[in-house]
């Protein structure tokens, strides 16, 4: 979508000539922005699908290892293909310039990755610096996508042609925003675990949410309007998980009392064997 077509018929003033240049520059920026938005959209979709896949883990289905393996492969693929494309677009540019274009995809990826770590029983959640290495690439030669660079730039690059590092930067704020969404997934995990009778997972999810929430309480988000909104959502997720555990407790307590009355031993038995069989629903 350039304006090349008019060039022939209109007699140019110097102003017109300058503006034709400006038009090109603006179109370039805009096109790059749109390309990055599309790349980001692909990452969002794939990350959401990975999260969906991770939700299929169920103790009674014994599919944990298999699913985690699949998920890890797909997460690596996102880094090595999708983010690489963005890194190439951003080569030599200020990453902040197109931040809004790829921020949604990046946040969703952070959410997916940290949820993966959560389910993997990692001893420690990775932070932005840890994740950054996945999005740092060594490339052999200057990327071929940049064609309209000036001669000086070219010669500069020729000196470093052998090896070059390009990145797709993970800013701390992006990480914190993406991580906040992890709360929603853990809450969902808590509810789903209740459904499949995996009580331990429920309590684990609830504890993790409480810790996560306490962490976010520490933040004094000066000038950022999204963080407070996310904290509100996180609080609600925490309350929902607490409610699930509460329900297990009151109902579990009830079952115990029925148990002592020896009328529902059978039912308790079922709970104990939930891990092995298909459960009662």
């Amino acid at each position, binding site marked *: 979508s350039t304006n090349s077509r008019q060039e022939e018929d209109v007699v140019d*003033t110097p102003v017109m000539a300058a503006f034709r240049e400006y038009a090109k520059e603006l179109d370039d920026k805009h096109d790059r922005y749109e390309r990055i938005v599309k790349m980001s959209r692909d990452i969002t979709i794939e990350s959401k699908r990975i999260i969906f896949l991770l939700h299929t883990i169920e103790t009674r289905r014994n599919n944990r290892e298999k699913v985690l393996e699949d998920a890890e492969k797909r997460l690596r693929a996102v880094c090595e293909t999708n983010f690489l494309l963005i890194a190439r677009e951003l080569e030599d540019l200020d990453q902040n310039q197109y931040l809004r274009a790829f921020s949604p995809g990046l946040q969703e990826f952070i959410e997916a990755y940290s949820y993966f770590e959560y389910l993997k029983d990692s001893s420690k959640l990775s932070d932005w610096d840890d994740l950054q290495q996945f999005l740092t690439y060594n490339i052999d030669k200057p990327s071929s996508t940049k064609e309209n660079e000036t001669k000086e730039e070219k010669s500069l690059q020729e000196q470093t042609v052998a090896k070059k590092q390009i990145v797709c930067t993970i800013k701390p704020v992006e990480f914190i925003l993406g991580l906040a969404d992890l709360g929603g997934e853990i809450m969902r995990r808590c509810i789903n675990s209740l459904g499949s009778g995996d009580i331990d997972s429920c309590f684990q999810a609830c504890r993790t949410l409480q810790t996560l929430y306490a962490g976010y309480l520490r933040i004094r988000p000066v000038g950022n309007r999204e963080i407070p909104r996310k904290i509100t959502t996180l609080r609600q997720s925490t309350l929902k998980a607490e409610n699930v555990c509460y329900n297990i407790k009151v109902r579990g307590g009830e079952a115990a009392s029925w148990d002592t009355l020896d009328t529902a031993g059978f039912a308790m038995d079922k709970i104990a064997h939930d891990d092995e069989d298909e459960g009662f629903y």
Partner: protein
Amino acid sequence: MSTFIHQELFLKFQQHLDNELELKEKIRAIVREIEQNSKEAAIHLQVIHSNIEKVPQACLEARKCFDKCREGYKQLAELIPPKQYYKYCDQWLYNTHRVVFLIGLTIYLEAGFLVSRETVAEILGLKVSQSEGFHLDIEDYLMGILQMASELSRFATNAVTLGDYSRPLNISRFVSDLNSGFRLLNLKNDSLRKRFDALKYDVKRIEEVVYDISIRGLAPQVQTQAQADEAEQATDSTAA
């Protein structure tokens, strides 16, 4: 408490936020300084609406203010870490638009043509391309130019009041040229687009002033477009 999530993560993040806040406050102090200087330039240039004789002097004063602005931008350039321009630029861009407008006005008053992006950048000590360092973006240059057009429409009106009938004709050609230029751009639905929509009203107002002059036979001379183009360079010296 879950061992998966370590509280250090949040302490580290808060540390990061605090550092950023500190930097932002430093920036704010410099920007306020630049703002003060650009405001002063604006006050000097207000004279165009009341006393045309004082214009050359006002341009000289304004240029002194731009020098001071350049010092401010230099400080900003030293303060902002490399490739972090776009993280903080919201703090100064509003003011940059105004400085560009004032420089554009000064150049127009002095020389009668549209200041180029390169010249504005040079006056403010900025780079033109992002890869060279602290730079002036094309969008910000254009925002300033559009602000100038608005001021010129007011200038056209007041020039007539002050008895100068050739200035509006000159302004009209100048702004009409600008308008044609802008029409070449594909603008997104952003602030630049909104500002450009306002340009239409400035153009219309200026055309009406020219109309008023023409219909009353007050225009300095009836001339063809070709003559007009020739006459252009001469006009400014007459008007100033």
